[in-house]
């Protein structure tokens, strides 16, 4: 008997090809598009969730001869992803909603739907691979999406198919063209799906109370404790940002910390961004045996950055501390840290703090 697989189809080229490859491989393929938020006409053309995208996915499914359903996950996505996104900014951190979307929505919620239709497998169009029960980086270095996948439940791996993970984006497009899929030439989007025009502040303004400290004026303070100006809300700033800061310094200044306690945006020279290690929370391991204390790790602190050498120095429960062989810049709380052993994703977590090279003095 053929095995059933529930494929998450966003209406983009990657998941279209993923579905097509599974059909070709003989699976009993069922397509589903997850509607994650109500765009209210505000976001006309998005990689997912817009009416056009749902229609694209439906037409691809029809062309492939597979059933297609729309799953309304607006409430769950709003709760698991959007609310957390807002709370993180309000707490002075810089979140990555895609990580939580993968963990909660794309994989956990999708798996529950798969159970309901007796599908042993789920599939997506992510550039990553599952082999030997472990998550590996995608073959296409430029497209690898494992930075966003560290949070998924480890048991999901046994039921997860990632058909395009072994291909380059160019190969994916070639397959789409060869199959005549209408999504073959669809442009890429790297933006956050529920943030119109990349303007996340507008989302915060909509979701936070009018008097929220994160959007209220506060001081701009240097790392040596001098107040050099004011800003109109620390949530409008990101660690590592250079734009929009007061001039008048001999060297370029960067945001090095957001401090909700006194609503300060702390700025300093390039060296002040450096950290020799980090603390991560909500750590999730994707291998059966988490690395031991003292174990060497390849550490990635942002999407597309090459992993750098580090060592696990502390591990208690969901929290770990990692030392880096060479200092790294802009280790930003709220962003993800992902640990690798070669191509294999060991696990990851949310950056809680940078172990700074240079101290910051209180204002």
């Amino acid at each position, binding site marked *: 008997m053929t095995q059933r697989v529930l494929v998450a189809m966003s209406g983009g080229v990657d998941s279209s090809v993923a579905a097509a490859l599974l059909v070709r491989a003989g699976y009993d393929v*069922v397509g*589903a*598009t997850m*509607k994650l938020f109500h765009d209210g006409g505000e976001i006309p053309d998005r990689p997912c969730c817009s*009416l056009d995208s*749902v*229609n694209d996915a*439906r037409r691809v499914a029809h062309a492939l001869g597979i*059933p297609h*359903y*729309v*799953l*309304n996950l*607006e409430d769950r996505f709003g709760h698991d992803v959007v609310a957390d996104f807002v709370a993180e900014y309000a707490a002075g951190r810089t979140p990555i909603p895609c990580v939580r979307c993968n963990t909660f929505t794309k994989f*956990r*919620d999708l*798996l*529950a*739907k798969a*159970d*309901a*239709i*007796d599908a042993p497998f789920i599939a997506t169009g992510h550039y990553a691979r599952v082999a030997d029960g472990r998550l590996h980086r995608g073959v296409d270095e430029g497209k690898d999406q494992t930075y966003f996948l560290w949070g998924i439940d480890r048991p999901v791996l046994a039921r997860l198919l990632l058909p395009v993970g072994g291909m380059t984006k160019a190969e994916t497009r070639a397959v789409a063209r060869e199959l005549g899929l209408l999504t073959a030439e669809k442009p890429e989007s790297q933006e956050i799906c529920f943030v119109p025009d990349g303007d996340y502040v507008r989302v915060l303004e909509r979701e936070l109370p009018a008097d929220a400290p994160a959007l209220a004026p506060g001081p701009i303070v240097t790392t040596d404790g001098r107040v050099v100006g004011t800003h109109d809300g620390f949530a409008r700033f990101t660690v590592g940002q250079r734009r929009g800061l007061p001039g008048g310094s001999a060297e370029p200044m960067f945001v090095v910390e957001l401090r909700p306690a006194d609503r300060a945006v702390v700025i300093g020279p390039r060296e002040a961004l450096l950290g020799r290690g980090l603390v991560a929370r909500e750590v999730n391991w994707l291998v059966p045996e988490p690395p031991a204390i003292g174990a060497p790790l390849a550490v990635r602190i942002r999407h597309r950055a090459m992993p750098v050498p580090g060592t696990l120095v502390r591990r208690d429960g969901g929290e770990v501390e990692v030392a880096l062989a060479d200092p790294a810049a802009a280790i930003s709380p709220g962003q993800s840290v992902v640990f690798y052993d070669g191509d294999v994703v060991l696990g990851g977590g949310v950056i809680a703090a940078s172990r700074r090279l240079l101290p910051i003095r209180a204002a």
Partner: protein
Amino acid sequence: MAPYFDTRFGNPSSTHRWGREARAALDEARERVARCLGASADEVCFTSGGTEADNLAVLGGWRVLKARGRAAVVSTPIEHKAVLQAVHQAQKEGAEERMLPIRPDGTVDLEAARRTIDGDVALTSVMWVNNETGVVQPIAELATMTKAAGGIFHTDAVQAFGKVAVDARTIPFDFASVSGHKLGAPKGIGAFYIRRGTPLEPLFFGGSQDRGRRPGTENVPYAIGLATAMERAIAEREAHWRALEPLRDALEAAILARIPDAVVHGRGAPRAPHILSVSVPGTDSESLLMALDLQGVAASAGSACQSGSITPSHVLSAMGVRADLASAAIRLSLGALTTADDIARVSELFPALIQRARGHVGAA
């Protein structure tokens, strides 16, 4: 219908012989539709379907009585979106929107209606048979109340026609909407009944067709199709009800026997027998619909938006159904082609799928 797509292609507004031929056919279709509604031919106009008829009724009635100083529109929260959104549009145009409360069994609260429908009401619009629960509303009482107060009474009879007697001679409604595709006519044709003497402002302008109430060249073949479908629906109405009711009752009994905590919506109220709306605690309609469809059973849930995503039913919410039950609702529809074997199959399959769904919900 067929000849009017082909050799008899005339425009009924043309005066030449092909035009006259089409005009004669259209007039005949209008006569037949009117007879089906207990009406005269001049009381019927053709629309593109139920949605247009509902919009024409609500907005056309509201706008004309607004000009005469009436300020309120009365409706219910369980209407089809075609009525609800038209009522919201009337509100934007200055109407005071008065929504009648719905009792837990799905019927309109007549006591509340008596307090609500007064001399300020321009129009009352209440659906005859609810499309999600099959519950039949007390249309005669509501029509009488509205007319006594000097307002216009409209009923969305899209689900009612062919199930209950929609007869303008016995029930004093002023406007009624009928949709073709619910009766087996093509999609894209509907009928709108306007009691003689009732004022109406058109939605469209630009022609004298349908006495200016609905300008635009008429779809002659579809009008003929609608007339035929309505005649057949009337001829089969009582037999259809007698055939469906025991099937619906058997399915309901089987589901309740195997799933004792299942909730049948509208149970206890007068119900048309073509719909069974049921919720099972601890399940969700989305997963059940997928599972049913993959087994070859086409069911529905609340209402699907354009993207196809399901939102919890506004009808069940208005009846006071708990949110978790509203988002678990499944609508099983029965029709002329439904057999006892079909019922037996779903009676087995549905509880089996429920059992599996209950094993998984909560693990999510």
